[in-house]
């Protein structure tokens, strides 16, 4: 069979090619390992060979022989897991994350571990200790973050699909920047066991895929109750491949108050085009209010760093990871953490520790938790009126490397539209809505369209996304050769 056909196939299509006998699973794996080995995007931090890719992987299963890429935040027994940090530069976990065990159990070989922002803290991949991953549409631009490597490999023809994690937008924003589909499931859908913790009340694993059908099918493999994560509840009844063609009777709410300044003209144009398509398919578009969503970034940058500062206290040079000094115990801790963590991670540990410290706890952490309640209520009220809340995924298309690294707050604005849903714990997806020029001109780049829905209504979310995807007809093929040398 033609390699171009394999390259263009997503996960489900690859499974069909194997099932029909058009191609063997060995041939599929060889093809994708060859692609991964030619990575020109610094998107993989580790790549497998034919043996290691299949280690522990079930021979049978719904996706037997369909390989995938895994964000380097998931622990993989016997395979290096760094979270893109010097702190874990030599770490080889003695156990495997539940999400990885589930894809292995479904028969999926692992192509490699993908680059990311250190400990998932970032929106551009530039916080990786091992250099940034690049965007396959334009290698001078970022793929987004923190799951930038996973987005880059799927868009750039280095993997058929991938796992990522999303804390404040880390699946959706890179999916939007790279012209693919990224789904953050409802908090609690997928086990967090073995997923290196950043902000435990927000972190959630999800799929990055070429199309909505793949997102649904991969989520179905991932989701479920896991006794190793007491916050995991799964999605009742699971998720199946969507088939909707119309949006009749469905109401889509646009939080106009959020769509103020700072949004690129091209992004807004593709957003408005997509609203027109919703109406063409029989859906209703209405304006809604999310009165407190404008405060989401501020609340998030208290809560997530606070949780991170406690989660990252485990990196102390004692049990695993880096140890950078053998002076007295206190110096060992301090020097290890000084050398092991990058600038953004230190910034967030400092910010979080400050927000939790005596005298500031109520003013920062306590207040942010109450604002979070307000945001949860905003969505509850919105979903009394509409089925979905829609926004652009990000205010801009993929920006240039170095463009936003000067000022942390400027970088944080990249997650303006994705953070509110994270705080509310609800599912949200980014689907490609077309291409647009960046402000200031230049070649056209992908624009993401975000759709959010009430907790655990993934099936409904995926049905609507599927209908929209078909009518948008986005073509991601220009990037498919962008990933190789």
């Amino acid at each position, binding site marked *: 069979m033609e390699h171009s056909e394999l390259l263009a196939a997503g996960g489900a299509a690859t499974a069909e090619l194997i099932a029909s006998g058009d191609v063997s699973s060995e041939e599929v794996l060889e093809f994708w390992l060859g692609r991964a080995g030619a990575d020109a995007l610094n998107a993989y931090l580790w790549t497998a060979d034919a043996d290691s890719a299949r280690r522990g992987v079930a021979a049978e299963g719904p996706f037997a022989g369909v390989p995938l890429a895994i964000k380097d935040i998931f622990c993989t027994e016997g395979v290096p897991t760094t979270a893109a940090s010097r702190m874990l530069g030599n770490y*080889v976990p*003695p*156990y495997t994350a539940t999400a990885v065990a589930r894809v292995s159990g479904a028969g999926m070989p692992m192509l490699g571990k993908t680059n990311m922002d250190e400990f998932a803290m970032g929106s551009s991949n530039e916080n990786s200790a091992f250099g940034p991953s690049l965007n396959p549409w334009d290698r001078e631009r970022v793929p987004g973050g923190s799951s930038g490597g996973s987005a880059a490999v799927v868009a750039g023809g280095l993997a058929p699909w991938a796992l990522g994690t999303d804390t404040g937008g880390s699946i959706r924003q890179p999916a939007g920047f790279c012209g693919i589909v990224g789904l953050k499931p409802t*908090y*609690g859908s997928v086990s967090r066991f073995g997923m290196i913790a950043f902000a435990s*009340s927000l972190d959630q694993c999800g799929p990055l895929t070429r199309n909505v059908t793949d997102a649904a099918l991969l989520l179905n493999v991932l989701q479920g109750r896991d006794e190793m994560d*007491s*916050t995991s*509840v799964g999605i009742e009844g699971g998720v199946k491949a969507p088939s909707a063609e119309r949006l009749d009777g469905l109401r889509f709410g646009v939080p106009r108050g959020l769509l103020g300044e700072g949004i690129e003209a091209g992004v807004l144009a593709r957003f408005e085009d997509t609203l027109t398509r919703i109406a063409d398919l029989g859906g209703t578009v209405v304006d809604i209010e999310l009165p*407190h969503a404008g*405060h989401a970034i*501020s*609340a998030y*940058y*208290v809560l997530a760093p606070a949780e991170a*500062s406690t989660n990252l*206290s485990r990196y*102390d*040079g*004692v*049990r*695993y*990871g880096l*140890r950078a000094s*053998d*002076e*007295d*115990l*206190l*110096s*060992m801790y*301090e020097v290890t*953490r*000084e050398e092991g963590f990058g*600038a953004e991670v*230190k*910034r967030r*540990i*400092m*910010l979080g520790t*400050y927000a939790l*410290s005596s005298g500031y706890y109520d003013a*920062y952490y*306590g*207040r*942010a*938790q*109450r*604002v*979070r*309640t*307000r945001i*949860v209520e905003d969505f509850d009220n919105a979903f009394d009126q509409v089925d979905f809340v829609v926004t652009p995924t990000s205010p801009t298309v993929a920006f240039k490397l170095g463009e936003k690294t000067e*000022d*942390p*707050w400027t970088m944080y604005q990249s997650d303006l539209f994705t953070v509110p849903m994270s*705080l*509310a*714990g609800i599912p949200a997806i980014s689907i490609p809505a077309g291409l647009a020029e960046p402000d200031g001109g230049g070649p056209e780049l992908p624009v993401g369209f975000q759709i959010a829905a009430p*907790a655990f209504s993934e099936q409904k979310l995926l049905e609507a996304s599927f209908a929209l995807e078909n009518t948008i007809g986005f073509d991601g093929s220009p990037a498919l050769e962008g990933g190789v040398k």
Partner: protein
Amino acid sequence: MIEREQVLHVARLSRLRLSETEIDTLAGELSSILDHVDKLAEVDIEGVEPTSHVVPLENVLRPDEPRPSLDRDVALSQAPDPADGAFRVPSPQAEA
């Protein structure tokens, strides 16, 4: 405004050693971030309960039964300085 002394205090709480440059940079960056975060004061939170997580679960229990955990050798396999079946650390006392 975050002063240099506050940076040093929080760094100590965080068990982070910072270079002189980092201290100055962080003082500026944290001040700037907190200026934005201070806008949270505009939100009326009177009588609002805090949200620490969004899953409607309480007291998830399982039977308390012994079961195997990681073997000691495996648990120690990633340790920077394992010794006598344990994690060895430097002395808490600085050498005099």
